[in-house]
């Protein structure tokens, strides 16, 4: 049960933005700008952005965000959807590009302790083909999921256990993006 009275039965962050659309609006706008638009020179696809979000949420042990963004990444990857579970299991052995691998290392450092994103860590991503926008967007996706994860867990919101629930969320996120839910 959530720590505060949310007056709705939606899961995860949806329950929080329905309860407080005033803060929900900028939170969803940030997700849309980061996970769908991105910096002008960024080479990251929407699927890769969702995968970074799911990976960080996994590191933070926030199942709701991990499972929903993993489902969105699977939907967006289409035939390459197996990459998602490979990365979540172990990014080093996953069949993803050297660039994405190096960006996932940056995301892990941001999540654990952002002061440890060293010149070497950033340089490795650049050497693997990452642009300034890729590095910027990766740092902010990881940082923002350190917020979303804490918001969802810190108020003890509802986390569905049925995988089918996440599949539906993933398809919605993959097609509509981040649109503030309307109260019923």
């Amino acid at each position, binding site marked *: 049960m959530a720590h505060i009275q949310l007056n709705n039965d939606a899961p995860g962050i949806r329950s929080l933005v329905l309860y*407080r659309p005033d803060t929900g609006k900028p939170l969803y706008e940030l997700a849309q*700008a980061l996970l769908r638009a991105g910096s002008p020179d960024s080479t990251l696809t929407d699927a890769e952005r969702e995968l970074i979000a799911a990976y960080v949420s996994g590191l933070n042990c926030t199942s709701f965000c991990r499972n929903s963004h993993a489902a969105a990444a699977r939907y967006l990857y289409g035939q390459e959807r197996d990459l998602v579970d490979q990365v979540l299991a172990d990014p080093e052995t996953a069949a993803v590009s050297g660039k994405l691998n190096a960006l996932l290392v940056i995301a892990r450092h941001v999540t654990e302790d952002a002061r440890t994103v060293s010149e070497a860590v950033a340089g490795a991503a650049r050497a693997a083909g990452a642009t300034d926008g890729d*590095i910027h967007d990766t*740092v902010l996706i990881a940082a*923002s999921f350190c917020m979303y994860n804490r918001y969802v867990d810190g*108020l003890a919101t509802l986390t569905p256990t049925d995988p089918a629930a996440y599949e539906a969320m993933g398809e919605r996120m993959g097609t509509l993006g981040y649109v503030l839910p309307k109260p019923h």
Partner: protein
Amino acid sequence: MPHIPLPPGIPGIRGPMNYSPETARPMNDLANVLLRTNAHHPDSTLSEGERELIATYVSSQNDCYFCQTIHGAVASHHLGDEDWSLVSAVKCDYRQAPVSEKMKALLTIAGSVQKGGKHVTAQQIDAARLAGATDRDLHDTVLIAAAFCMFNRYVDGLATTAPVDVPDFYRMRAAGVVANGYAASDPG
């Protein structure tokens, strides 16, 4: 040196916000609604100064120099803490600091959020309620703490720079924030 080319002379988070205005806008909107607008809601008992104090405490736990210094300066401005002794006391050991029992209980929750959302316990929530915190206060405390776990990482993850040992620089910028709020454009 920052990991991506940022305009020189713009400190802390303002550099990456200048680089990426599309993400800066919702981030500033979030800061304004959480740290300023909501302080004036009838069901809120948290003042702007108290909200800034929570932001400062979380930023100090994350060891983010720019965020703890600028938000500490804004908190001090609101709270009449001219020599910054109150902010220092909260960062050092808030349990011994001259703040209300409600603030101590909310800072405990903020400290848990900083470690990870699952560290917040029902006992911590109950203690804050007993000390007078409303559901709105609890929500805003958790989201302020969570948001600063983002802002701090954005600032440090890109290795931005910030002037050190120049309290008047931060006092001046704090006065600007108190007067005008958090804006996407940097006043310089």
